[in-house]
């Protein structure tokens, strides 16, 4: 049995000391998050920094909602890259397709958990949404398109794309043979099955791409359609959400691919060419987002309503400047690094990973700046400026969610090939 497990590809079934240590650490963070959520659930949201807008001078949407947007955003890149690989036949990118799809699924699950964390009474929220949701509301679109449509479509795509590898894995004598057989569902890699999968994945990719643009747009509309909230009410919210989603998702995908390249020693399949493509994609997305940001900033400061101007001032040199400028810098540095690499044609994975880390920090900062300042500084009623400071409960729950996502990723890697198993000729 041991010799069989040693032969499994990509370290499946091999529980190394490093991996065990990582899982142990993640379990500690998850426990901390679970304890924090228990405190919040039993004592109410008073243990968080969330307070009513206006009368209590606070924000009702805080860190949780910022991370809902962040996680949904991260999910964008995964399935987009997977769908583009299929539609544009980018065969050299196939090694990252499964890790991208998995990233989408896990981040959507984390987004759903973040929504639940934000609700004081999660069960009531779910039931009322399912029963009384209104089609005109962007919340309805976000729920039906993001959670049901997008997540389910990603799961279907992921499942079907993994059948071939499940069939291959089922030929090994492992304790999880039953699982691989179940996943393979009789797949035998016949020409007919391959052709059928080619057709299915093509049409799924065609269906998924517009779905995810719509889904991310509805999330942008949750903010962009609120006329009574300065800095939210903007036609640019929806497209900016889509673009920033791509920025954070591609950035995270680069990090994951680089980590797996090192852990699995897969320099051949996860070649520099793969990172080069991802880097170029990231560069274009950041440039587009910077353009949107400048347009929005000019509009709000040049001709904006005085509430909007006050809010912009708070971000540029007021209460939120300490988040705003580092976020902008975290976008500018990667774009300079990426342009330089694109011009010199010398791509360095270390610099790409650094860009990925920076854009994700920028994404978190920008999400926070979208959600919070409009509530604390943007009241149209004659209330003074409010404030919002997240408590340890919120930080712990968010940390626990990240740890849960990492744990799911780490567990999956030990159970199933994280990259498509190459065919006999060596191609994916």
């Amino acid at each position, binding site marked *: 049995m041991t010799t069989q497990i040693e*032969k*499994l*590809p*990509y*370290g499946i079934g091999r529980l190394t000391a490093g991996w065990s240590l990582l899982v142990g650490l993640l379990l500690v963070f998850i426990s901390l998050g679970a304890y924090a959520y228990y405190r919040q659930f039993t004592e109410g949201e008073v243990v968080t920094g969330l307070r009513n807008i206006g009368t209590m001078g606070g924000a009702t949407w805080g860190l949780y909602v910022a991370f809902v947007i962040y996680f949904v955003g991260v999910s964008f890149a995964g399935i987009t890259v997977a769908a583009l690989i299929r539609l544009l036949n980018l065969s050299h990118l196939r090694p990252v397709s499964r890790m991208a799809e998995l990233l989408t699924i896990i981040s959507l699950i984390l987004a759903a958990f973040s929504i639940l964390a934000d609700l004081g009474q999660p069960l009531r929220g779910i039931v009322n*949404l*399912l*029963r*009384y*949701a*209104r*089609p*005109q509301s962007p919340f*309805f679109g976000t*729920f*039906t*398109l993001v959670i*049901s*449509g997008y997540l*389910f*479509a990603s799961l*279907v795509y992921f*499942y*079907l794309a993994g*059948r071939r590898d499940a*069939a*291959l894995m089922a*030929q090994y004598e492992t304790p999880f043979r039953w699982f691989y057989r179940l996943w393979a*569902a*009789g797949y*035998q*890699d*016949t*020409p*007919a*099955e391959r052709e*059928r*999968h080619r*057709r*299915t994945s093509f*049409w*799924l990719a065609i*269906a998924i791409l517009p779905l995810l643009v719509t889904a991310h747009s509805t999330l942008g509309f949750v903010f962009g359609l609120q006329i009574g909230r300065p800095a939210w009410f903007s036609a640019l919210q929806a497209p900016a959400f889509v673009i920033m989603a791509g920025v954070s998702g591609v950035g995270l995908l680069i990090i994951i691919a680089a980590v797996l390249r090192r852990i*699995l*020693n*897969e320099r*051949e399949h996860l070649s520099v060419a793969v990172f080069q493509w991802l880097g170029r994609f990231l560069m274009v997305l950041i440039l587009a987002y910077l353009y949107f940001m400048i347009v929005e900033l000019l509009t709000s400061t040049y001709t904006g309503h005085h509430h909007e101007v006050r809010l912009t001032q708070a971000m540029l040199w007021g209460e939120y400047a300490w988040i705003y400028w580092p976020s902008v810098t975290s976008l500018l540095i990667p774009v300079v690094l990426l342009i330089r690499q694109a011009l010199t044609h010398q791509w360095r994975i270390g610099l790409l990973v650094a860009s990925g880390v920076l854009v994700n920090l920028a994404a978190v900062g920008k999400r926070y700046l979208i959600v919070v300042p409009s509530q604390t500084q943007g009241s149209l009623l004659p209330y003074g400026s409010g404030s919002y400071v997240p408590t340890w409960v919120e930080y712990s729950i968010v940390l626990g969610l990240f740890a849960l996502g990492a744990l799911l990723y780490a567990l999956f890697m030990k159970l199933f090939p994280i990259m498509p*198993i*190459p*065919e*006999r000729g*060596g191609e994916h």
Partner: protein
Amino acid sequence: MLMRRGKTLAMLISGFSLMVVSYFFLAAPWGFPPSSVVYSNPRVVLVTPTLISLGEYSFLAWPLRVLEILTWPPVIFVLGVMMVFLSAVVYELLPEKRSYDARLPQQAGLKQTQTESQVRGPGGTS
């Protein structure tokens, strides 16, 4: 009996139908301006309880209970979305006509040989 393509098509049509019916006919009505209270309440919430209570003591009691699902239009919409995407699974998993698929496994690479040579381990090892 419907073949694979027929079942896939049936699932697609049913899924899209569920979405259209729930979105446009069961949930809150569309209208302008959308902020008006007239367009706030889901339509069937008022209709179905009345129907169900009317049939409470008749032989229609149980069939009318099924109508309760109509008070959950978002759930119906989600089911429709899921059905549409599940049609891809149906298309890929259900067998093709027997005569067509039966001869193909003989050509399959997987069945003939031990796959160890097909499966490359990390670092290019087999």
